[in-house]
């Protein structure tokens, strides 16, 4: 099983070319990423290809005493440049991708348990004329499930070396090293040039049967499991238990972990404070930089918890089943079943949710999901919700002991955000993000045990992407807001909040927010809370705490004294809709690879928030 079958003798006359870059290509679900992780031993970089949302993974592999760069191309079924992923693959393979040398060799990864289908990709890849090694991945599963393939015959048919490997358990991979050391002959290009997908598919079927391919028997237990997990009654039940568990864990475990981390980081700052001279420097280091770093790190627990689940669900094969069950419901708003889990997790926090939208292959559906996720009532809205509801809505029973006015108000805010999300989705999907030529096709892979390694690698990968690529933006904005609240200096000391630049800005925007029922203090809160929604509570606490009129009362009492009922309701509605979250914007920028969508999203959400708050304030004021 480990041998490399070099069927076509390499032309000895050709001078040996040094291979520096090799491309890894294969269809989705071919185990390409697992193989990439095996070959590179985690020495890899993640970025985005310029101008598009496709992620760029490159890594380094040691072959003998030299290092070879491996480019992990997006998973594609063909090289017809219909989708963004396919265009990227074609451009990289042809050396037309900016800042990326043309690969000198290709590793073609195909799922051995699904070979007839996956072989379609072999024809266009081999036709490129680059030295190519076909890796029939999951060879262990093929053998275990009594399937087989004559690799010698296949190599003869394809005109390229073929190796049977297993990326999961790491067998057969020495073939890659040997291939890269001796690959000097380009692939034989006597294959028919097949531009048409249909012809490729027929050709693949012929080659598969000529190489005596026997597809594996699908394991009976996998089908029996589906009899339960896709059962009319048990299916939805298990689905609800699973998504309930995901939500509960992200909310109930991720959130407390984030809070604990926040407390720990704050405590560290307090411990460090006596060692730094009181004044500007201490404020810059601890309130500016350290708080900025903390505001990035506190998202990690929730991201890691969500991706732990996504990893387990995706690797086990259940994620596809969950998408199948949710699809009918999601299709009402023009999205597909795969959007369900990202949108659900947005109730805990939009940041991991938006990162999780990567499981949605359809680009337009993915973008729509990213754009509506921040409308879901995330946990950062709860502090201001509870504060205002407690201050302005008297508790009275509505439905006996089960539902009071305050709980009802909270519920209404959740519904309001949900309605905004659905409305926006419908609007997007019937206009700019209308899916034209992509029918919803969902592969149901066989169930498998997720491996610790693969789930762990995913956590590492996503954690790194967030800290490195969204973290910088979050840190910069935190520093900016810190600067606004700590300048101008008075005799080398930061000013009181009411004398700071941000307070002046609050006064400056007061005429614009007065129609919403907000005063300048609320304005300052709105400005500082662009870092994170919950920051407004702290800001208002500071401002009212310094005001001689409200110094001696609680923040709740101070707000009752300073805000009208209509203004308070308007503020609640404003927070339901507004994009008061730099971290979300930073993640949207990272995931859409540009400022265009986060800017549109910010303007759209803040616009709705402004309008809705205005209507609420004016209507309630009129009614009174």
């Amino acid at each position, binding site marked *: 099983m480990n041998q490399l079958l070099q069927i076509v003798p390499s032309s000895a006359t050709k001078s040996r070319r040094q291979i520096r870059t090799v491309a890894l290509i294969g269809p989705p679900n071919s185990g390409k990423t697992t193989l990439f992780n095996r070959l590179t031993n985690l020495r890899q970089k993640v970025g985005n290809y310029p101008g598009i949302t496709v992620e760029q993974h490159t890594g380094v592999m040691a072959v003998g005493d030299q290092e070879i760069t491996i480019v992990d191309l997006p998973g594609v079924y063909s090289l*017809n440049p219909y989708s963004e992923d396919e265009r990227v693959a074609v451009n990289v393979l042809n050396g037309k991708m900016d800042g990326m040398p043309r690969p000198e060799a290709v590793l073609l990864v195909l799922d051995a348990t*699904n070979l007839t289908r996956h072989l379609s990709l072999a024809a266009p890849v081999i036709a490129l004329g680059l030295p190519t090694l076909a890796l029939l991945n999951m060879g262990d599963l093929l053998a275990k499930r009594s399937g087989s393939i004559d690799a010698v015959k296949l190599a003869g048919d394809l005109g390229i070396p073929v190796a049977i490997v297993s990326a999961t358990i790491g067998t057969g991979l020495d073939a890659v090293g040997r291939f890269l050391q001796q690959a000097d002959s380009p692939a034989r290009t006597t294959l028919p040039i097949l531009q048409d*997908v249909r012809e490729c*598919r027929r050709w693949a079927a012929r080659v598969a049967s000529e190489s005596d391919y026997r597809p594996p028997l699908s394991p009976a237990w996998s089908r029996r499991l589906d009899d339960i997990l896709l059962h009319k009654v048990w*299916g939805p039940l298990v689905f609800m238990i699973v998504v309930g568990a995901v939500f509960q864990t992200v909310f109930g475990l991720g959130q407390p972990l984030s809070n604990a981390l926040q407390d720990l980081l704050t405590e560290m700052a307090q411990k460090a404070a006596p060692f730094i001279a009181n004044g500007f420097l201490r404020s810059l280091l601890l309130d500016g930089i350290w708080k900025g770093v903390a505001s990035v790190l506190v998202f990690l627990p929730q991201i890691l918890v969500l991706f732990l689940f996504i990893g387990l669900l995706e690797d086990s094969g259940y994620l596809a089943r969950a998408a199948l069950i949710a*699809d*009918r419901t999601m299709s009402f708003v023009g999205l597909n079943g795969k959007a369900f889990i990202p949108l659900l997790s947005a109730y805990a926090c939009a940041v991991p949710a938006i990162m999780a939208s990567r499981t949605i292959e359809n680009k337009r559906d993915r973008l729509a999901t990213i754009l509506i996720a921040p409308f879901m009532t995330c946990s950062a809205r709860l502090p201001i919700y509870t504060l205002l509801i407690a201050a302005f809505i008297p508790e009275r029973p509505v439905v006996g002991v089960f539902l009071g006015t305050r709980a009802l108000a909270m519920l209404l805010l959740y519904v309001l955000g949900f309605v905004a999300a659905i409305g926006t989705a419908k609007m997007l999907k019937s206009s700019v993000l209308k899916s034209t030529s992509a029918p919803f*096709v*969902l*592969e149901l892979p066989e169930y498998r045990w997720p491996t610790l390694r693969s789930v762990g690698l995913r956590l590492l990968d996503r954690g790194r992407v967030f800290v490195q690529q969204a973290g910088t933006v979050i840190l910069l904005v935190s520093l900016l807001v810190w600067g606004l609240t700590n300048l101008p200096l008075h005799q080398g000391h930061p000013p009181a909040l009411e004398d700071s630049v941000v307070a002046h800005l609050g006064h400056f925007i007061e005429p614009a927010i007065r129609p919403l029922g907000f005063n300048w203090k609320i304005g300052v809160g709105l400005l500082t809370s662009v870092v994170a929604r919950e920051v407004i509570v702290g800001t208002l606490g500071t401002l009212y705490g310094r005001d001689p009129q409200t110094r001696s009362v609680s923040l709740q009492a101070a707000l009752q004294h300073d805000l009208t009922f209509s203004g308070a309701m308007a503020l609640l509605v404003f927070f339901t809709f507004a994009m008061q979250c730099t971290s979300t914007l930073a993640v949207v920028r990272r995931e859409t690879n540009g400022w265009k969508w986060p800017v549109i999203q910010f303007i759209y959400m803040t616009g709705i928030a402004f309008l809705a708050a205005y209507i609420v304030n004016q209507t309630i004021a009129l009614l009174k």
Partner: protein
Amino acid sequence: MRVRLSDLEPGEAAVIEEVALPELEQQVLIRFGFFDGAEVRCSRRAPLGDPIVYSLDGSEVALRTETACRIFASTGERKACEQTR
């Protein structure tokens, strides 16, 4: 007998005769094995009735009814299908 793929009962097999969808949609479906001449078996329906799961080439792929009802198949060669696992 010519039927729509969406009309197949779970367990029933058929050979695709025509995919009456725009070319671009056909291109996508071909990648998953849905093209004329392909042997398909309906495995099950999602709990809410839609999408429908088909088994072809030894793998399971789900299509929405809106797509499956535009694919026409013949159930005449059912015997032949059942022999090819």
